[in-house]
């Protein structure tokens, strides 16, 4: 895999290149957006990835449009809503990596994970998001009552870390939100017709083959919540359009039975979201939260977003 890195900060560019090189990719770093076209001149579209700050998203998007098959990765130190335009308009960009500020690179583990996956490695296990030695819970959810119990257990699990109560509540909300999608939104019958999406107030009991899996884990520095449904119906536009609408002004879209603001709730409760979809097989959503920051900083911190689909 060949990576072209457009980064105006030399030190950051160097560090990002080093991370890509560590995964076996080749990397070229440029600082001037005007040099991007030249750097991509001889690149093979299917194996080339262009990376840049979202500030240079216009330039990246322009080059990707001209070179079908090439992938784009953005990073940003700003709120995600500014990057969403590129994700929504350019199908070749599926990833935004958060960074602390313009002088910091994206998180190293996240970048190397991204690099590996762009090279064809499959979805990582939950352990890959956490440091070795983490602890966690697997929760069984079948009914509406199980959903509420699971949300309460997740709140207790987070609260047991002696973090601010608001974080525990926030994660319980996140779990509730993701479970609503996995239990009510995802299941379809043999004809592909949604089974439970029509009435979100109804109590339901899922069959074994419909049940989502719920995992919450932490290594003390990060919290990871992973919810997987066995349907794989989530589409790219659900994520990006939902987020764009929610973050742009919170206009409600009731066309799918809900408020259309679930993605925004998820975004607001996490520092990074990973969506892994294998159509017809599963949708796996992993939400991460950094425990080593206070809520004040969390609100202003840039957030990562990844969408993976074969």
């Amino acid at each position, binding site marked *: 895999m060949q990576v072209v890195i457009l980064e105006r900060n030399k*030190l*950051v560019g160097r*560090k990002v290149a080093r991370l890509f090189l560590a995964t076996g990719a080749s990397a070229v770093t440029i600082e001037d957006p005007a040099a991007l076209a030249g750097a991509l001149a001889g690149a093979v579209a299917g194996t080339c990835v262009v990376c840049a700050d979202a*500030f240079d998203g*216009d330039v990246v998007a322009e080059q990707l449009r001209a070179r079908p098959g090439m992938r784009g990765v953005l990073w940003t130190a700003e709120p995600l*809503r*500014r990057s969403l*335009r590129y994700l929504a308009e350019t199908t070749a960009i599926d990833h935004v990596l958060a960074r*602390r*500020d*313009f*002088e*910091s*690179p*994206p*998180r*190293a583990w996240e970048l190397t994970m991204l690099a590996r996956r762009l090279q064809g490695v499959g979805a990582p296990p939950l352990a890959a998001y956490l440091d070795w030695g983490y602890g966690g819970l697997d929760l069984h959810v079948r009914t509406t009552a199980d959903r509420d119990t699971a949300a309460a257990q997740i709140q207790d699990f987070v609260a047991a870390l*002696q973090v*601010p*109560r*608001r974080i525990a*509540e926030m994660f*319980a*909300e996140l779990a*509730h*939100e993701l479970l*609503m999608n996995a239990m009510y939104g995802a299941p379809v019958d043999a004809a592909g017709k949604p089974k439970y999406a029509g009435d*979100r*107030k109804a109590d339901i009991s899922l069959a074994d083959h419909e049940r989502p899996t719920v995992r919450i884990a932490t290594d003390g520095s990060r919290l990871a919540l992973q919810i997987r449904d066995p349907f794989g119906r989530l589409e790219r536009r659900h994520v990006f359009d939902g987020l764009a609408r*929610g*973050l*742009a*002004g*919170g*206009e*409600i879209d*009731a066309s799918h039975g*809900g*408020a*259309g*603001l*679930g993605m*925004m*709730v998820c975004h*607001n409760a996490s520092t990074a979201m990973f969506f892994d979809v294998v159509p017809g097989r599963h949708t796996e959503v992993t939400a991460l939260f950094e425990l*080593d*920051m*206070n*809520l*004040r*900083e969390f*609100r*202003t911190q840039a957030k990562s977003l990844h969408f993976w689909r074969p």
Partner: protein
Amino acid sequence: MASIDRPVQRPSQPIIPAGAAPKLVIEKFADGGVACIKFVGTIDEGFEGKKLGMTAGADTLVLDLGGVKKISSFGIREWVDFATTAAKATRAMILVECAPKVVDQLNMVANFAGGGRVFSFYAPFRCDYCDSEHRVLLQIDRDFEAIKGGKLAERPCLSCKESMYFDEDGATYFSYVLGQERFQLEPAVEAFLASKLNYAVSDLNRKLRVDKVIEGRTTYLRLNGDLDGTFPREKLAEGVEGTLIVDLGAIGKIEPVGAMEWRGFISQVAPAAERVYLASAPPAFIEKLCTRDDLNPKVQLLTVLMPYTCASCGTTGAHNVDVAQHYDVLKFATAPELRCPQCKHAMQCHAGEAVMTLLPTMPRPTASPELVKSITVLRERAIQSGGAARRPAATGAQGVAPGGQLATRSSVVVPMLAAMLALVVAAGGYLAYQRFTAKAAPTGLGAVTNRSAEARPAWVIGDVPAAATCSDAPGKGIACVGVSSISARLDDADEEAADAALDAVANALALRIADPAWKRAVVPIYAAARDAKLAAFDRDPANTSARRDVREARHAVGQVLRATSGGAVPAAPTRRYWEEYQTADGKRYLSFAQVTLGGTEVGKLIEGYNQRATALGATTVSLFPLISWRYPRLEAGAVIVALASGPLQELGLAEQYVVLGVGGRDVHDAAAFAKLASDEYAGLAEHGGPLRLKVQAAEGAPREFSTEIKPPHVDPGAAAGSGKHTRPSGPTGTGVNVWDKLGGDKGTGRDDPTQ
């Protein structure tokens, strides 16, 4: 551990929904035209928003949201249904005690308030010392200036008395409430909150206010607030004759000293008045001040406020019971049966036994039914005149000020307003501080398809994209208007307009700083860069790069201005307006933002940016926001405006360099520079070591200047046994946010490449 900053005592029982441990408990209260719905718990898909909204009819609906714990996305939808339905059934909707979770939704979800206005909300505070969380109630009337500043001061923790800090980002957290105007509650709502819900509207409003209406030989007094030592009995008793009606419906707490004053008042007025009638006496008043000993033969109780609950619709409210009409029932210590005004079902009275046993001891009132009916009219007049008296244009209404002074409420604000208007008219020509070219209005955009107000506001005086103008505001203030470029997204346009306005404010401040030394040293740092970027944009507004350069610079200027203004610059624009156009490429937006600073703020800012501090031969001023045009990544620092011989000159520093750090510690402003540099140098002079400064020089990225400072030669023998011990310097344990102490926001995380 969590707590709130005031006790909550509410008079009603939760009514609906029933069942064990419901996720959401809803209580309803009503009194006259004011109704309140209180929510406690989780708002999710189970909340029947529309259904509840249809039952919410009232003149003013108060939504008490202090107990909301969680709101799911489906709950949001239900809530918006509720709010929009309820808003249609009411004249006004007020949101009080909004929990942080509610504030989050207000900030994120369009129309979450359904047209209602937020009067009060909780700000989350955290104490890192005892690991506790607290909520502090902010009110839009009382705390507006602090909210506008975007920052809340640290305050003593309610648990351990150490310092606790506001645990949110002010710009984000206050974004919704700053978008609405500052407002005061109407007297009826105020009274409702204060007396029925024990809600402390504010320190001022809780104090007793008396509205007075004289109609022929009848004097009507309406008491509103706590009955305490401020009760102006002498003033009120003065000149009373004929019939006196005292309306007690809006009375709050009754302090012992207030009860004493009341008794004195009755003894004073009873001889002069023909009759004293008490109306709308609440149960607490009856218990404390209507015992056999308290009632003078001339005093009669006309109506009493009794708490009733409707078992059918769940509404709890205080209802006026006409004592004469129901005397034959009341004399048996029984409450009369009343019908619910909402659903017409029979209501149940739950007044306390003490009140019910006192009522039969009262004399049967002798007032005519016409007089009883006239109280409603007199109350309306009193409320209207009282409310008008607190508005600037009112004249002539009489009232008693909070301090208990009887005063004619002719407003002194009127001439001030007239003067302000005159100034605004005088400034109609707009003193253009800022780029304001004679370009045509946006063309090719087609018709306006939507806008945030019915008509373009008067403060929008031009629509040249990406322009900004400033005018003088009254009292030496500044009012700057920024215009966005034509944008595909409204939020982008809003942000760009706000940044343009803030950049204009900074430029206006620069023009007002008269000090030639400041102008000589600071202006050249940014002027060329600013002019060049603006000129490039003027030449080709369609050029993405030029537009981005201007936008990035303005954004950086705005951030520095807010960060360095000490709260003088509001976190959000004073006014906003936008227009939507339908073009061949889809919807396009043009946004306008106005930032207004008062004369005091302007003076404070000018003084702050021109404040000098000297250390090691360098005279510095704090980083001026417009410097961001040249160095967009600087957030704070000290600009060297004069450099005499000394260690810094020897280090290679020069005038117009910006010092960003000393000895690894950040320089926030000129004063911080002087202190850090002096302390660092003094320490090094004693012990030796490198003097290191992080500096933004004329070119390139910030870099470090350092030199080795050698310690003075010390005779070991002389130093031995001196008994002096030095301690490593470092932050002390008080008043410090632990996160800040650890440098949590300064890139020390594990992913920082420098670690």
